[in-house]
């Protein structure tokens, strides 16, 4: 999905400084326990920050269901043995991985961890997607398209980005900084995106930050897709440019 020739340009610093907030909920696994049993049989447990934890007894003695019932704050437990970690490290660095996209590679890393004897993964049942790319890759268009994402905080521009897709690949990330003085004017930017990418289907997604946070969080915790964020094909406002199709009734779910 991510092109190795991805272009990233014209990122307005006042916009892009908020990227951390925007993707905060896109890493579904926040609280992870890592357990390693070394060759001597000594077990060590740390959390995602590397800080030591004391969950070994519960992990060893409780069933998965009971463990997550007792520790609902934990999203995932990853237990490693030397043999498992060796196999994993070998597999994820084989020549066959050169050709796949980085998002596929990251997904593969998750999958190999899950499938490797000597590695045991326990995922909290509340988590629907373990990897951000599991979800995102299913939501994005498979045809040539451009998406304007526009997030406001108390009606002021907080973040935006323009994502361009070609032949199933994300080929460009940019912001409305490319439109200079108009960078914080939604209507102007919408027009300019349509003008700049005339042969491409245009989608837009505009909402308040609070809503964005809620919806992106729901991606990973909801059993159904009802809470998915749906982008409007042609922004629902077809007068923005003549090139936009007005066939919006079957607009694909983009996000």
């Amino acid at each position, binding site marked *: 999905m991510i092109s190795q020739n991805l272009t990233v340009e014209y990122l307005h610093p006042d916009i892009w400084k908020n990227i951390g907030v925007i993707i905060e909920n896109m890493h579904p696994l926040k609280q992870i326990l890592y357990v390693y049993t070394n060759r001597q049989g000594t077990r060590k447990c740390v959390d995602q920050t590397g800080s030591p934890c004391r969950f070994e007894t519960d992990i060893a003695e409780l069933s998965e269901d009971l463990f997550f019932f007792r520790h609902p704050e934990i999203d995932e437990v990853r237990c490693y043995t030397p043999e498992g970690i060796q196999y994993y490290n*070998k597999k994820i660095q084989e020549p066959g991985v050169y050709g796949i*996209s980085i998002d596929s590679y990251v997904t593969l890393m998750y999958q190999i961890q899950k499938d490797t004897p000597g590695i045991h993964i326990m995922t909290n049942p509340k988590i629907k997607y373990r990897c951000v790319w599991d979800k995102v890759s299913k939501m994005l268009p498979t045809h040539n398209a451009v998406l304007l994402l526009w997030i406001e905080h108390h009606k002021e521009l907080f973040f935006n980005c323009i994502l361009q897709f070609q032949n199933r690949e994300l080929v460009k990330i940019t912001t409305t900084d490319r439109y200079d003085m108009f960078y914080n004017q939604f209507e102007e930017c919408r027009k300019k995106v349509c003008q700049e990418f005339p042969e491409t289907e245009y989608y837009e997604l505009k909402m308040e930050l609070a809503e964005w946070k809620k919806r992106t969080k729901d991606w990973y915790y909801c059993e159904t897709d009802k809470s998915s964020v749906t982008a409007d094909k042609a922004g629902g406002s077809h007068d923005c440019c003549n090139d936009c199709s007005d066939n919006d009734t079957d607009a694909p779910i983009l996000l």
Partner: protein
Amino acid sequence: MSSGTCNAHGNKMVKYTANGIQIGNMELPLYSATFHYWRSEACHWEQILEQIKGMHFKIVETYIPWSVHEETEGCFDFGSKAPNKDLDAFLSLCEKCGLFAIVRPGPHINAEMTNFGYPEWILYDEEIQAKNPWGTTVIYPYVTRQFPIPSYASEQLYVKTERYFKALEPILKKHSYPDGCIIAIQADNETCNFFRDKPYIMDYSSQSVAAYRQFLQEKYKTAETLNTEYNTCYHDFKEIVPPEGYLNGELTRCLDWVEFKEEQILDTLTKMVGILNRLALPIPIFHNCAYQTYTPVSVQRDEKIKGLAVAGIDAYPEPGDTSMLKERVRYMAGSSRLPYIPEFGSGSWFDRLTLLNPSEEEFAYLYAFMYGLKAAGYYMTVERDRWSGCPVRNNGSIRKEYYTMFANLNQTAQTEAIFQYTRKPRILVLRSYEMGRLKAAMEDISQNTLSSNCFIAGPDIPPNLFLSENDTSLSVDTKEAYYEEAYIIEACKKLDEFKLDYNLSDCYLDWEQICRYDLLIASVYGQENRNYQELLNQFQKLSGKKLITGGIEALNSVKSWKSEAFAEWADKECILLNPNIEYTIHWSPNQKSYLLYLANIDSVKQPVTVTFCENRIFISVLNGNGLEGKGKQLCFSLAGKTVSIWKIHTDCKEGKGVSL
């Protein structure tokens, strides 16, 4: 070397000094602005260079990426096909604009390029690839594509690098000073296994293993000697296999592997410097370490490489950071010939969670200067693909706030010639490089496969999961990071609390450098080599010098240190009581005046009261509300996370014309 390149004594006409760079007879501060010519349209180059000049920069710096100029092996493009690859034209334009240039041809460049500047035909050549302990390649997972890491042991890597450099040679020669604008060249870039610097990740390729065996043979001479140390029964060095992780009872073997990896980094850099030396360019060669002040990297050892003038360390601070910068700059001030940050973050890569605003950047830069930084390469000053937050945009227009910050900073730095002022701390804190090496050796199979990239983080495994439990027979420091030692951390905390200025270094510092200090605080764990122990003993015997040593068991005694016991080494010039205000003094060459740096490390405004030992004339140089005066006290308010610089005249008669 042509006659035009050297003075009458045969010395290069450009050389690094302790303060900056000497070009001909002129010593300049080394502040450079990074601009990647190939990432902007050639039609914008001149406007961009003029903007760089407008911020009072005199030096522009650029990579020269191999993958851009030799996409296909043997087919070079220096502008014949793509105008933005016309390096000759770019350098000519620098000359036309009156700018000096620093060039960094790699071969490793990173630059947020998919293959870190290496052509694909290099990375995918199996002969050149590094190997993990299990025989597959070593992957670097960059945000746009994972790629195999080249092996430092591959002779082919150096052969092909030299061919590329040879292709560059006519352009580099034409534009080297004094005929042209190039004043320095960098050997490789952040040479340290593509950030995957843990010991058991690589390189287990046949060529690397052969080099390892050679290293052991040179160290032990005979298999019998090695067997005695390892408690093994090898008949030949060829039988020895490298360790894949720490095992109890195999410490010596693991330490040797860690030491070999240090040697491999040095050897790589030596070869890269050698290739550049063979170009016989009349300019000095430097290197930038990524961030390591610990195994397998050492700036002091790098600077011992023949032909390598200076080794700096890069820095990308987080907003409001003080701890990393203070530690790193003090280390460089204590260890390097020129405290130099060849890449000092200006803006950031797109996949980082933070982006500093202009005032946060200014704080970081001034804070680094405050602790002894002399030279900086602001990376980047021109935005480009995959990078944001610079004073100049890719099309030559400016971001006013960033631009103004740099213009003011450079103007002040140059007007006041701050690079000629020097801190003179009397205390040196010596960390144990060997303790870091011990911790590295005792790791298990940590792979740190993913970088800090915010879009692809996820399957990472915290490296300290694989730290071995302490062997009770060994005295191992309690901190997990190689560069952290509990004793040193506590000692530095106390020195900071007492407002005592100091530098940092380790066992690789030269004796002459150590002797510049009056008080040495060193961590010792009983495992140090004999030479180092002897050096400490010698220092202790010198008149007027004092040595304080300690280790794990000395932690409590450090915590009970009293400031009175250190009064002898305290600065007598001024007193500041506010714990949120840090200060350093930088003396002018004639010792009659100094620059007083005051940093408010808190996020809210703080009152500052400086009490001088005698009447002083003080003039605000930067962030001092334009104040000036005379007396024994300087009082003002300093905004949060701000560094203020004051010029202080010790001889009040010299301050004629200063309003009181």
